[in-house]
């Protein structure tokens, strides 16, 4: 098994070693499906736009809660020293942890599959949009996850890591909201638009949600995810000095 694979296995199991994983997944499903089903019965439309529309805000709380333990727990319990003296690169340890958290999120996301199945049975949903929505949910989760694992590394305390991660994800979300970028433009001409284009996630996410697959949107999510993972790796190496 590869080095990252060994870490992945242990970290993924760690989520399910405690009841917290099950509570997380249940909360995720109940809230998401609940938020979706109420308007669904009113609008009577066979699409998942509302479901995916809620995610960017909802995941701001959910993802940092998943990632907060990734480094903070190890630093507090002393296992950080064990991990950082294993004969593997610190980036391999990090990727193992990152993908374990992603796998946990994917499990939660799989729990929502009954919705599209139900929609397909009841009507004729736009499967392209549903597929695009799930892809967007994955990419968005992956980006928040990278932000979360990075902030978890900066702090020793899980709650602080959670709050910092939440704030960072929220900032990425906010700069992409037109009203916010317009306000910033009002203060410093053009700066709000620049932030929105460079970092704001909503325009990219909404494109995916419509089922439009464009290289630019994929590059935004994957690129920014990579940036935060690299920052995390740099921190892991720099911490020694």
């Amino acid at each position, binding site marked *: *098994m590869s*080095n990252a694979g*060994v*870490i992945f*296995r*242990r970290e993924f*199991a*760690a989520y399910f*070693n*405690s009841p917290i994983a099950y509570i997380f997944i249940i909360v995720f499903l109940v809230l998401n499906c609940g938020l979706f089903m109420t308007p669904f019965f009113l609008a009577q439309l066979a699409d998942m736009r509302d479901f995916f529309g809620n995610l960017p805000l909802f995941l701001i709380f959910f993802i940092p809660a998943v990632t907060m333990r990734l480094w903070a727990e190890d630093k507090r*319990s*002393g*296992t950080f*020293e*064990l991990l*950082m*003296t*294993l*004969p*593997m*690169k610190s980036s391999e340890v990090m990727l193992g942890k990152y993908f374990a958290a992603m796998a946990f999120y994917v499990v939660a996301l799989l729990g929502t599959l009954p919705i599209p199945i139900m929609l397909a049975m009841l009507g004729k949903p736009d499967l392209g949009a549903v597929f695009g929505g799930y892809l967007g949910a994955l990419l968005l989760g992956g980006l928040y996850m990278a932000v979360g694992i990075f902030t978890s590394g900066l702090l020793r305390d899980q709650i602080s890591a959670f709050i910092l991660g939440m704030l960072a994800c929220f900032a990425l979300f906010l700069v992409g909201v037109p009203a916010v970028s317009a306000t910033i433009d009002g203060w410093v001409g053009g700066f709000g638009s620049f932030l929105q284009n460079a970092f704001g996630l909503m325009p990219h996410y909404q494109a995916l949600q419509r089922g439009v697959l464009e290289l630019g949107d994929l590059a935004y999510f994957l690129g920014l995810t990579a940036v935060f993972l690299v920052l995390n790796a740099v921190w892991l190496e720099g911490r*020694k*000095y």
Partner: protein
Amino acid sequence: MIEVRDVTKRFGTTVALDGVSFRLDKGEILGFLGPNGAGKSTAMKIVTTFLAPDGGTVSVDGIDVLRNPLEVRSRIGYLPENHPLYVDMMVHEYLQFVGRARGLAGDELRRRLEWVVEACGLGSVFRKPINELSKGFRQRTGLAQALIHDPEVLILDEPTSGLDPLQIIGIRELIQGLARSKTIIFSTHILQEVSPVTDRVVIINGGRIVADGRIGELERAAMGRNRIFVAYRAPAAAAEAALRDLGGLHEVRPVAGRDGAARFEVRADFGQDVLAPLGRLGQSHGWDLLELQESPFSLEDTFIALTRQGAVPREVSHV
């Protein structure tokens, strides 16, 4: 072989290590002593590549810790000061995880697991969650983790801290058993634990090495003179006067003894035979000799002399 040369490490404005050097040959065991906060753990973290030195070089088996940290790590088994345990795992899951992370698999992993469980006495808790283990078992699980890949070099930071006397003996015997084949550094601030395991010690204080050598040499060097206890059945004043007249003794100090005994602590240079003159002194005055023994300074005395602020005899520093 471990070679630490002129290593410095700062945390902010605090100097944790200030020009630390020592060397350990293959198969040697080193007791790493010092008061709390002296820099023991920092030095061990640098040898294990967890921290990088600000200055100086460290190599393990000739491999530089900065240039090739992964190669160094694969040769080292490390027990950090805080139990490096995942308390949500069972003992066997945890040891399997560390074994796999260290590149073991299949039969080899199973063989090594059996060996460490036997060597560390973990049989009874093998399938228990770590958060249910006593402190002693946790420490042994940590030790098992450090041994799972059969490393050539063992770095143990306070391996016996918080254990009861029987558990300490258990860990000590384990280290002694490993001694033949491995290079070991273990730190402790409990001095009695050192001499049964090794006679090679390094004493560190305030980030500097204050002594490096065999326990016996250090004791002599640190205290300067031999110490002898002598007691006669005699009037105390007369005996003291006679001792002072004897010559060759540097210091004569009455100390408490049994009823009717005049008991003294005297100091003499090393290598000087004072036992025979002290014996004859009693005979010549017709005093019964009740006690006559050389009482070398203990490691404790040495340690205190070396680590007390401002009382460090310069000539003791071998580095």
